[in-house]
């Protein structure tokens, strides 16, 4: 991959207020955004932002609401004038350009896609897409043929004469994308372009953007407040906080080497559900048989649940003793042996925080399901092959399996554990020999099991569970930390 610098920001600062020089001197004294706002009633939009974007790269700008993402993006085509600093596009400083030069750059080099589509309601799809060409004075025939090609490239062929009001959200954003592409710009600016779409359509659009990127090789600057989206799309990600860039790196770097507590919180808060550990893929251990029961009980349970092996536990605390196979149980019944003797005591067991990539080889080798056991020997859950496959299908769809260090399970709230279990709940395919099912109610309490309690909140298909996971993951991010007014009101 060639690493031509397409766009470079040098010390970009933006102050919203009446007396920017004063704010800049306060910034130099080291005051924070909120202190400055208290003191001067001026808002620091951006504070000394520096980065480079390479040719053909998808660069994602991420951060909480009010962190300055939109402001930064709008500085790149000077929809917002930066207070200080330089913006170089192909080595040319656009902050020094006069109105005409700026117009030319906007017409030919930079396209923009908006969060709420921003289509012109009085125009058809075709005339919306042709807008950028129209204002360049390109004759009708030529601009329509270019616009049609752009419409086709976003999969809207046949809709060119539709009215905007007849389109669904996803189609509208395709028109928005086509409009930006029609000018054939080198750089695409996208401000939360998919945020207004519902999760499934959104995921489709992300896929299509990636496919498009493969075909046309644009440099894309994509603003998002959603880590999942950023991880999926970004070649590199810049994380913003209070108008400053706190970290720039590849998705892996952001996940595994967070620069400071802000980033790691960001990553944790969003990614908790996606972090794959033994605990997050295990399922509820049911049925279980008590070590004090006879073989007859064990056989009956296995029969009822249609399974060929059962875990043997002791006491209320579900202390794991071993695993009993149906063959051994039948023999024990004949010979009158106790469960303790008949069972296989060294069943494979793993700690709840073992990363999934270490779980995989174990489950591949083992002929039994894996038992997830905590420090005190309590059986928390079981992992069958199907569960892992389901979890991998989800994470594979998101493009990453490698995960950062997981915290101790004790530090998680039960709510989180619940959701972690829930998202990766998986119903094993028939072919796989499995040991437990969710339905049966066996006489042990599951309040303290720490695993999902299986009351109708199960998403059985591991492949689909990606969407709800994203939806919930987004929620904590929207809490506005900003003190100033919303920027989007008009």
């Amino acid at each position, binding site marked *: 991959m060639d690493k031509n610098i397409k766009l470079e920001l040098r010390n970009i600062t933006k102050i919203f207020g009446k007396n920017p020089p004063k704010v800049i001197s306060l910034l130099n004294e080291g005051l924070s955004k909120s202190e400055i706002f208290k003191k001067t009633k001026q808002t620091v939009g951006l504070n000394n932002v520096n980065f480079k974007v390479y040719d053909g790269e998808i660069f994602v700008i991420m951060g909480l609401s009010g962190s300055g993402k939109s402001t930064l993006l709008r500085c790149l085509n000077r929809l917002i004038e930066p207070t200080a600093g330089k913006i170089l596009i192909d080595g040319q400083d656009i902050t020094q350009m006069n109105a005409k030069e700026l117009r*030319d*750059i906007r017409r030919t080099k930079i396209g923009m896609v908006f969060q*709420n589509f921003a289509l012109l309601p009085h125009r058809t799809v075709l005339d919306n897409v042709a807008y950028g060409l129209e*204002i360049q004075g390109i004759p009708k025939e030529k601009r329509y043929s270019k616009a049609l090609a752009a419409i086709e490239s976003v999969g809207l062929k046949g809709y060119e004469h539709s009215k905007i009001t007849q389109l669904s959200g996803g189609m509208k954003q395709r028109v928005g994308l086509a409009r930006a592409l029609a*000018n054939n710009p080198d750089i695409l600016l996208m401000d939360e372009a998919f945020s207004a779409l519902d999760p499934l359509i959104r995921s489709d659009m992300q896929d299509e953007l990636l496919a498009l990127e493969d075909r046309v090789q644009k440099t894309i600057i994509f603003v998002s407040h959603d880590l999942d989206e950023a991880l999926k799309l970004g070649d590199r990600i810049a994380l913003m906080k209070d108008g400053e860039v706190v970290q720039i790196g590849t998705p892996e770097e952001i996940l595994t080497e967070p620069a400071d507590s802000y980033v790691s919180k960001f990553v944790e808060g969003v990614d908790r559900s996606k972090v794959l550990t033994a605990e997050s893929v295990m399922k509820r251990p049911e049925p279980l048989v008590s070590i004090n029961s006879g073989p007859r009980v064990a056989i009956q349970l296995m029969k009822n649940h249609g399974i060929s092996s059962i875990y043997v536990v002791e006491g209320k605390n579900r202390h794991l003793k071993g695993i009993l196979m149906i063959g051994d149980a039948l023999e024990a019944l004949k010979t009158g042996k106790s469960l303790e003797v008949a069972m296989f005591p060294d069943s494979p067991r793993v700690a709840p925080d073992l990363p999934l990539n270490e779980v995989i080889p174990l489950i591949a080798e083992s002929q039994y399901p894996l038992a997830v056991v905590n420090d005190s020997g309590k059986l928390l859950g079981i992992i069958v092959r199907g569960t892992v496959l389901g979890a991998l299908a989800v994470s594979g769809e998101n493009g990453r399996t490698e995960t950062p260090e997981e915290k101790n399970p004790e530090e998680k709230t039960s709510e989180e554990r619940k959701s972690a279990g829930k998202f990766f709940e998986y119903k094993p395919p028939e072919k796989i020999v499995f040991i437990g099912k969710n339905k049966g109610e066996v006489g042990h309490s599951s309040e303290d099991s720490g695993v999902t309690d299986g009351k109708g909140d199960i998403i059985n298909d591991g492949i689909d569970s990606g969407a709800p996971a994203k939806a919930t993951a987004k929620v904590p991010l929207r809490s506005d930390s900003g003190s100033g007014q919303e920027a989007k*009101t008009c």
Partner: protein
Amino acid sequence: MLIPRIPVGDTVEFAVDWIEGNFGLFLDLTSKQLDLLISGLKDALLFLPPEFFIPGISLLSYFAGKRNIKLAAGTAFGFFLIENMELWELSMETLALVLSSALLALIIGIPLGILSAKNNILFHVVKPALDFMQTMPSFVYLIPALIFFGLGNVPGMIATVVFAMPPAIRLTNLGIRQVPKELTEVADAFGSTGWQKLSKVELPVALPTIMAGVNQCIMLSLSMVVVAAMIGVRGLGYQVLFGIQRVDIGMGFEAGLAIVIIAIFLDRITQYLSPR
């Protein structure tokens, strides 16, 4: 304590004398031009005799209303009634006055509305003026017009233009200010010039609101043209006034009915012309 009488009337008289002394020629010229506009339009409207005019205007409203049979039938019937009441010529004179006044009000008002949407300083000057104008009863406008232009159609038209302009300014300004910020950003982000932004994005998006202003402007023009009969404007208003003075109920009522017909016609047509 004795407070001397403040010479309000004298001052005004002095000011008027001064203006007439210095701008008399200009006022006369404008007066002539406006008279020409009104009589020209009136002659144009009277060019076709009613037997042709009525089918013509019905057909026009049929297409203006997007093939609306009811609108066309109503128009035909209304204008037929006017002709039948022998008020044709007076009605056309009133219509000519309304249209030329409204046209002038829009030609001034819409650009002023656009400018005040673009320029906050201008907006802060224009807005209180509009608010003030709205508080005044309509016939107050007749006094300055009368002073500078005497009696007749022209002062009536001037008063009408002033009276009917505020909604055109107000709603144009509002419409442009209400254009969503993302849409103006689109215009800028794709490299539009100021004029392209206005003509291809702002005005089309604001058009429904602007057309509401046009509608109000025309309706106010009609009401003012009728009231302006008090300073010698000819047409249906004068007929109503005549009927009142002579206590001729039938005559006053017929002229009033003709006014109502024209009002409804103008209202419907402008409403159908505005996009939704």
